[in-house]
């Protein structure tokens, strides 16, 4: 298990406009670890991802990346220091080719041909299908292939942390398993991962640590192994039964 946290969220309260979704949330992602965040619909999981990337209104609290306070950095600045995010929906450029989609990271980072070619090798080693289709427009690809492009975009130019916001949404069980396994593969190649998922059972198996979010608050956390054998504890947390809930 890695030592320090590569990402630390400290007492974060955030939302959209004037409505608050997250309440003083604290959590962290260790280097080399795959951290999972689960919770029922509307619990604020997506908001967490957006807030980390400063795309939601942050009311208070901080986000630290490699011990540096990055709360107020623009998406561009975050990408430059090694953070990436794969949003849930609408996460590819339909009318650009696969290759062009992968190039879009260079909107933020300085382009280098070698850097890009190396990144492409890495991407195609994880998603071999994309190599043959790299000059096709994304809108001609299937749902699963599109999601692969969405994930692959985050792999360009040596990311250090990738946030995946419900990557298996709208995918079939077989494809979901495939995508989650690929995410594990990515994590094993040295990239820290923050995975936000609905597919709890499968995601639990590939993750190291898990947080449960309910109504914008963290209600449960722990090493994943603990919950694999004690799944009902997770389920209860979803429905409001968790340590400390009796006090409410």
């Amino acid at each position, binding site marked *: 298990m890695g030592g320090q946290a590569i990402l630390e969220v400290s007492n974060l309260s955030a939302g959209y406009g004037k409505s608050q979704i997250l309440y003083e949330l604290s959590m962290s992602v260790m280097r080399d670890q795959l951290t999972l965040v689960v919770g029922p619909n509307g619990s604020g999981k997506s908001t967490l991802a957006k807030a980390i*990337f400063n*795309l939601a209104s942050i009311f208070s609290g901080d986000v630290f990346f490699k011990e540096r306070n990055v709360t107020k950095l*623009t*998406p*561009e*600045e*975050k*990408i*430059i220091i090694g953070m990436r*995010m794969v*949003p849930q929906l*609408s*996460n*590819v*450029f*339909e*009318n*650009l080719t696969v290759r*062009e989609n992968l*190039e*879009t*990271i*260079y*909107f*933020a*980072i300085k*382009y280098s041909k070698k850097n890009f070619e190396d990144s492409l090798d890495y991407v195609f080693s994880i998603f071999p299908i994309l190599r043959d289709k790299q000059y096709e*427009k994304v809108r001609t690809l299937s749902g699963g292939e599109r999601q692969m492009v969405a994930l692959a*975009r985050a792999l360009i130019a040596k990311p250090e942390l990738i946030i995946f916001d419900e990557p298996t949404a709208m995918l079939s069980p077989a494809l979901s398993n495939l995508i989650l396994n690929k995410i594990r593969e990515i994590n094993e190649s040295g990239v820290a991962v923050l995975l936000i998922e609905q597919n709890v059972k499968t995601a639990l198996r590939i993750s190291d640590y898990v947080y449960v979010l309910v109504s914008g608050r963290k209600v449960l956390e722990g090493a994943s192994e603990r919950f694999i054998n004690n799944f009902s504890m997770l389920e209860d947390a979803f429905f409001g039964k968790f340590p400390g809930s009796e006090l409410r």
Partner: protein
Amino acid sequence: MIDLFQAVISSIVIGSLYALMAYGLTLTLGSIRIYNWAYAEYVTISAYVTALLSSRYSVDILLCFPVAIFSAVTVSLIADELVYKPLTRKGSTIIQVMLASIATGLLIRYLIYIFASVNNVVIIKAAYTSKAVAKIDDLIITDLDIFIVGLTIFMMLVFHLIISKTLIGKQIRAMWDNFELARLSGIKVDKVRRFVCILVGMPAGIIGSLWSIYSTITPTSGWLLLLPAFAAVIVGGLVSIPGAIIGGYLLGFGENFFMYIAYKFAGVSLAYKPLITLSIMLLALFVRADIIPARWLLSILTRAATHRGNGR
């Protein structure tokens, strides 16, 4: 018979101007999501610059072009900074932006009116007489015709290269395709926006200068060119650049070639020209809105155009 070919020549010339203008309008619309009705005034300003410099100050006509282009680009940037960018930041609806752009256009036009009437140049023409380059019986092709068609097509090709091959072109296409994702991917939205303003300001400068040579200018000249250009944008479905280019030529032909045929063979008065523009636009509109069934050949043609266009 010869007049028919002359009508074809003018159709191509006017069509090229409309096509280039529609290109600029569609690009602005797609990437920045602005209906820029003030674009007409960028053209008018350029036309006046060229006309004044060449006739009052005897500047060589080719030297007027860069000055006109510079003026158009400057006005384009200023209008964006003062009006369009603040509105986009505020999250204004597309109707509010359209209203603002019409108002901006009118504001600039009034300023042009004031300038023109004070300096006594309300009606003006550039000091250049086109020379015939080819003459077949009574059919005349002038150097101006060739210059217009050549320059506009050249500009469209340059645009195409910039947008498809350069990094900033990819950024423009990304913004066009998925604005939110583009922002998330770290695009410097303001920088790209400014680039687009400069990019579309250039053809405005060129069109204005060419127009001041081709015809007499008044403060409403730009507006009268803009209307068919927007109709061409509609033919392109608002999102398709090839569609807009085809629309431009379609309207060029409609206003010149078809008008001429209607005039010669059906005695239709030339006053009906705007009705032809209107009919083409309404036809395109109805086809897109499925009011005219898709079985028609016309809709198939339009869809073929947009299918190629969606590659942007």
